[in-house]
């Protein structure tokens, strides 16, 4: 898995695809993750954010190799904990644009609890779950989204356990922007990324990204050129602020619909609430210096 290519030098203030490219991806040829990466480059170019303020983070998995392939500040953390790690980055630094990538095992299994709490807390960051319904990096074990009957190395007779419903899980986490897209639909992916990036709060996108090695053809039913149907949510009919309607979409028959399921625009972020608390606290202590404050605490213990 070692990588050799040297990244192309980026220029300050000019965001280009070349300047965003880093190591050549180590994914298998044909892996859906390439397209997820390409759409990320393009979205960043379009958003034209200061490159040094973009942070690309991930957990562990094939999909989580992402940061090495992007020339931004990057962090490759541990399996399942990318969200709390990224939450610290986001909460510590309001000037940063934090993007997190990872797989279905990373997000729904080992890290499942963190998704619920990042949702509750509404950290300001964007989380992309590259869902391939399988454990790719560890070579084909059952994942939390593997359908029942899926033959894996841990369930050669076909998986027994009922799969997690990804959209229902994300919606119930309290995430304030929830969308679904497909790695074969670059434009749609870009649109979802852009809206997620612009959303103030915890935005989560499920991208169906095929693992050609261990789960080939799994998403064909959503690929028109393979006879499937890529049905986009019509937002003139679906009110994105309507949670019951969003949950109803999540219950639709496979392959379901794509687009924005839910968006709560005015839910305050944890970042803002903590910032307000700091401002109120600073006000209350008369904006004293840290040293004066601590000295005052010691004086009260005399």
């Amino acid at each position: 898995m070692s990588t050799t290519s040297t990244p192309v030098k980026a220029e300050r203030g000019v965001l280009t695809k070349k300047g965003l490219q880093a190591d050549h991806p180590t994914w298998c040829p044909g892996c859906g993750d390439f397209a997820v990466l390409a759409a990320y480059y393009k979205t960043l170019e379009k958003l034209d954010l200061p490159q040094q303020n973009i942070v690309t983070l991930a957990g562990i998995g094939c999909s989580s190799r992402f940061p090495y392939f992007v020339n931004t500040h990057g962090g490759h953390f541990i399996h399942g904990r990318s969200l709390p790690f990224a939450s610290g980055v986001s909460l510590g630094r309001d000037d940063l644009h934090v993007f997190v990538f990872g797989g279905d095992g990373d997000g729904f299994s080992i890290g499942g609890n963190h998704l619920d709490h990042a949702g509750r807390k509404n950290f300001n960051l964007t989380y992309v779950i590259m869902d391939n319904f399988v454990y790719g990096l560890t070579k084909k074990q059952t994942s939390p989204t593997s359908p029942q009957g899926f033959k894996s190395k841990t369930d050669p007779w076909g998986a027994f356990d009922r799969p997690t419903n990804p959209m229902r899980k994300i919606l119930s986490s309290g995430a304030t922007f929830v969308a679904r897209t497909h790695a074969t639909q670059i434009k749609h992916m870009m649109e979802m990324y852009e809206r997620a990036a612009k959303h103030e709060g915890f935005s989560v996108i499920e991208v169906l990204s095929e693992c050609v090695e261990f789960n080939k053809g799994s998403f064909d039913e959503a690929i028109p050129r393979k006879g499937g149907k890529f049905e986009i949510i019509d937002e003139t009919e679906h009110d994105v602020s309507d949670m019951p309607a969003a949950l109803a979409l999540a219950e639709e028959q496979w392959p379901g619909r794509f687009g924005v399921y839910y968006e709560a625009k005015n839910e305050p972020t944890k970042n803002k609430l903590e910032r307000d608390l700091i401002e109120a606290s600073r006000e209350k202590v008369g904006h004293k210096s840290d040293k004066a404050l601590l000295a005052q605490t010691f004086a009260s213990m005399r």
Partner: protein
Amino acid sequence: MPEDSSTQKAVREEHIRDAVIRLAGNSQDGIQSIGGFLARLAGRSAQEVMTYMTIPATISGGPSIFQVRMGTGEVLSAGDEADFLLAFYQHSYENHIGFLKEGGVLLYDSDHVEPDENDNRFVKVGVPISALTVEALGGSSREKGKNLFALGLLARIFKLDVAKLREIFKERFGSKAEDVLRNVNLAFDAGFSYPIDNVLDRYYNFQQEGEYEGPQQVTMDGNTALTLGLIAGGVRHGAGYPITPWSTIMEMLRQQLPKYNGVFVQAEDELAAAAMAIGFSYAGHLAVTGSSGPGISLKMESLGWATMAEIPLVVVNIQRGGPSTGLPTNVEQSDLLQAIYGSHGDCPRVVIAAQNVEDCFYSAREACEIARKYSVPVFVLSDMSLASRIEAFDEPDLEALMIEPTLDTEDRSADFKPYDLERITRHAPPGAWIEGGVFPQVTGLEHDESGHPSANPQMHAKMMRKRREKIQKLADELPASQIYGDEEGEVLVVGWGSTWGPIRETVIRERDRGRRVGHLQIRHLNPLPNDLGEIFARFEKILVVEMNDEGLYGQGQLATLLRARYCNPAIQSLCKTDGLTFKIKEIMRGVEAVSPSHAPSK
């Protein structure tokens, strides 16, 4: 000894150097708060003070004690035995009479306690504390206020400074409703004016060694001192999950940090807390996470990442009895090897241990300095006994000690490498522009100098050495170890963490009886100081005292490490896991066991 008030006796005054007072009741009686008042009073006088506190493992009610040792001069340990026992209930009397010295004073609430008539080892003084408190407060508040009545009695017996006590009440209750402070004073006055000399034939008076002229003293418990040390060390960010006895630190940080432009997050679990703290640090703000017992185990994978990715971090472990949920409200020092080795892989990091309440402040602050300087996680070990024990110590000089945090997002030059093999890692946090336009990756995979994955075995060996050598460099920079007492001789008593007080007192006593004994308390446990081998060579025996199990091979955790490093069979181990701090006599017995005294004691 008289306990009968019928005959009036001449009251005598005894000058004493120090006194151990044990207050025993139920937790809802406010035992802890009178203990706190006494401790603070002693801190404001010329006296030293050390307290000992047990709280029941369950939260609602239940037996509770507070022991305060006040004295002039240095008070080193909470005291093996009490000079004075105040018992509120029959169970308080029965469970604690064994801790009272022969000839000591048993003061009891005669409304609840019936002491054994045939036991004449103590001076028994019964006062109807409950009834008199109800009377003083007009009967409205049931038995609330008993603690203050008792404090009044103690103030009378020990000739405490009443004006200073009233000041402390005012600070504590002044902001509450007016009648709260009034009731406090009423209950206190009722106790203070009780004619105790009718039943007790002596007053005590602490020997005053003239007016105190040293630095201003502050009085607080270990967890508070540790929290303030983190703030002085420039920590403004952190995350944690509640667990006793770590929780009070996270509560204080949550309440204090916003005033300092910071934030502390109560995370969903310790896995998230560690990850989030690392996120803050990666973002350029040195952060803290902490826990006790099982919570520390949950953090271990993330801590391994922080060593690998070379991220500065402070990790606090307030140790308690383990394994598993173990003895959640008892003291133990059984997490040393976990702190050093508890993550998978070869994972060097720094471990320091606070030796008393004052040192909780200094250790925490030092941990912040080391974490930044070496870009590494640093464990601060404290324990249950230090967490809630109150001590008075010299107010730290913030002019010299305060570290103001800075966020360094300056541009980095084109040759910037996050994992430069020739230098100690200094990360460029996000926001920093890199002149070459190549941004760094921070990772837990083995990597090359730029942070890109490398499975090359030579690179792994080089990076492993880089991570190890910076810790060795820290060892080179540690100050020389300080020995108390004899610099060479029969026995060197070695400890770490909160055993400092009882060991020091033991060594003083041993030397008083003519033995050539020294005390070395090791604060830096990983890396160990470089001068230990040479020090050990000067003693016939090295006795390592620690509150953990002797293990499969007969040695405690520090003793195991020291034996492994120095291969010195003179290193012997004294261990225990009874959930209580060491008594002086236990350590004296240990010294005797490894080095029998030939000369009769003086």
